[in-house]
């Protein structure tokens, strides 16, 4: 069951992001992995550029025909000018960053708009695990133990909105990603959405 949710979610957040992007727009994907998603966008007419740290994944990006540069997202991201991309993407990666706040601020400088998909730590199943089992939540989206997880900065949807407010970043659009209950998710995303896609812009 968890596997299903994960696949569904994976497709959903990238689907939402790709629906935002028009042909001809310049897209920078931070943590682009093997470039499969960027290739889809490229085939649809976007001008894409990936950023990835892992050399093996970089090799696979090149094999997918996607331009990619090696850079650590925990760094300054000063390899490109402000406003040089229409979109800067970050999908399900922000929780791994040392300074999510600095990264978000930099993203809305580089891109006219940023699209960020986040995992919702406030989902009811996470709350249940903490509440009833007294354990840190684990599921298919977060299969790690507390001690070996790369995910060091989890947030809820509410937390994320608050950070954007503090950073003076405008949320142009928020799309909650439902697991099973679409209506409940729309009504109470922080409790029922397994994640969300935010479209952000510098105020």
């Amino acid at each position, binding site marked *: 069951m968890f596997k299903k949710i994960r696949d569904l979610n994976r497709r959903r957040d990238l689907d939402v992001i790709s629906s935002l992007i028009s042909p001809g727009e*310049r897209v920078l994907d931070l943590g682009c992995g093997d470039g499969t998603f960027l290739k889809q966008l490229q085939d649809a007419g976007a001008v894409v*550029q990936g950023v990835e740290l892992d*050399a093996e994944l*970089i*090799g696979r*990006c*090149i*094999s997918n*025909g996607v*331009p*990619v*540069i*090696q850079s650590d997202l925990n760094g300054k991201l*000063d*390899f*490109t*000018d402000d406003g*040089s991309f229409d979109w800067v993407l970050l999908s399900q990666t922000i929780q791994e960053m040392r300074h999510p706040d600095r990264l978000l601020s930099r993203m809305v400088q580089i891109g006219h708009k940023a699209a960020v998909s986040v995992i919702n730590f406030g989902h009811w199943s996470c709350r249940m695990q903490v509440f009833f089992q007294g354990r840190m939540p684990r599921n298919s989206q977060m299969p790690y133990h507390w001690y070996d997880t790369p995910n060091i900065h989890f947030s809820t949807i509410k937390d994320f909105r608050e950070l954007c407010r503090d950073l003076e970043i405008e949320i142009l659009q928020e799309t909650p990603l439902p697991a099973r209950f679409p209506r409940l998710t729309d009504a109470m995303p922080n409790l029922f959405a397994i994640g969300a896609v935010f479209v952000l812009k510098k105020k």
Partner: protein
Amino acid sequence: MPLDCGRELKDVNIRYETAGQLNADRSNAVLITHALSGDAHVCGRHTPEDRKPGWWDAMIGPGKYIDTNKYFVICSNIIGSCSGSTGPRSIDPDTGKPYNLNFPVITVRDMVRAEKALIDHLGIKKLLSVVGGSMGGMQVLEWAVNYPESVDCAIPIATACQFSPQNIAFDWVAREAIKADPDFRNGEYSADAPPSRGLGAARMLAHITYLSEETMSRKFGRNLQNKDSYDFDFDFNYDFAVESYLEHQGKRFVERFDANSYFYITRATDYFDLSAHADGDLVKTFALTDAAFLVVSFSSDWLFPTWQSRRLVEAMMKNKLPVSFCEIQSSYGHDAFLLEVDTLGRMIRDFLRHRQEGLKHV
């Protein structure tokens, strides 16, 4: 041929080799640019008896990463060298004698001018790619900036936008070693009495800069050469394996290289500064090109460290050029560009394949 120094080079001869077939629309040509001591013999063997194949044979050939079944590969010897193209050893048509130190001072851009003349001569309007490491990478960058209309994509490897003060310093010491050899005679040495000790010392120094501390430690450690204890000799001949290795490298180099050429080529790299195209502004320099780039560096290369490749990548990105960049983890130092064939090769192969497919769509 006009040169950057203001002089002209007459009767320019270019030695080059090709592998593979040029296709009907002449769109599959890949130029390989060689490093300081390289030559035109890039792949394959001239005769089955040859002891060694070309210098990048592991990378280039039928079915290899740069596949000569698909690409028409060209490699030419740089001018100023001593392996077939016009250089200090060539006869000066004005005097009828070898140039020696009367050879004009050349730049990396001059080398590329000569390569462009060759490409024109071969009837190729646009190269699919120019690929090279170290000083070859400098030529790749000059190609992209000087002849953007003639290059679809460029692959500079283990290189930089300019020679660093440290690089220049090593060259200086190497040349001083040659000058200090009594056989040097201000460049007017005879073919049978070249300044072997000076040139050998220069090569040994340079060879250290091509290796990493890790490679040296692993390969030689503090092992002694053919002995069990220190000599405590006054001749200061080699005790250690690493000394013997360098001695061997120096001797081998002297057999195939010319001291005057070493002067001219190292000087060309000293003078190399790509940003001179835009008064020292590297970002503006890359506004001169529209090539796609694959930039590769190696983690243990301290002669051309990764931060220098990052400077290139940043300048390319700021010009909105399509760029791929990877630092390959390797312990081989600068030499990694010749030794990490598989990791590097796969990237080059895949990059070229997509660039060629892209050309077909246009």
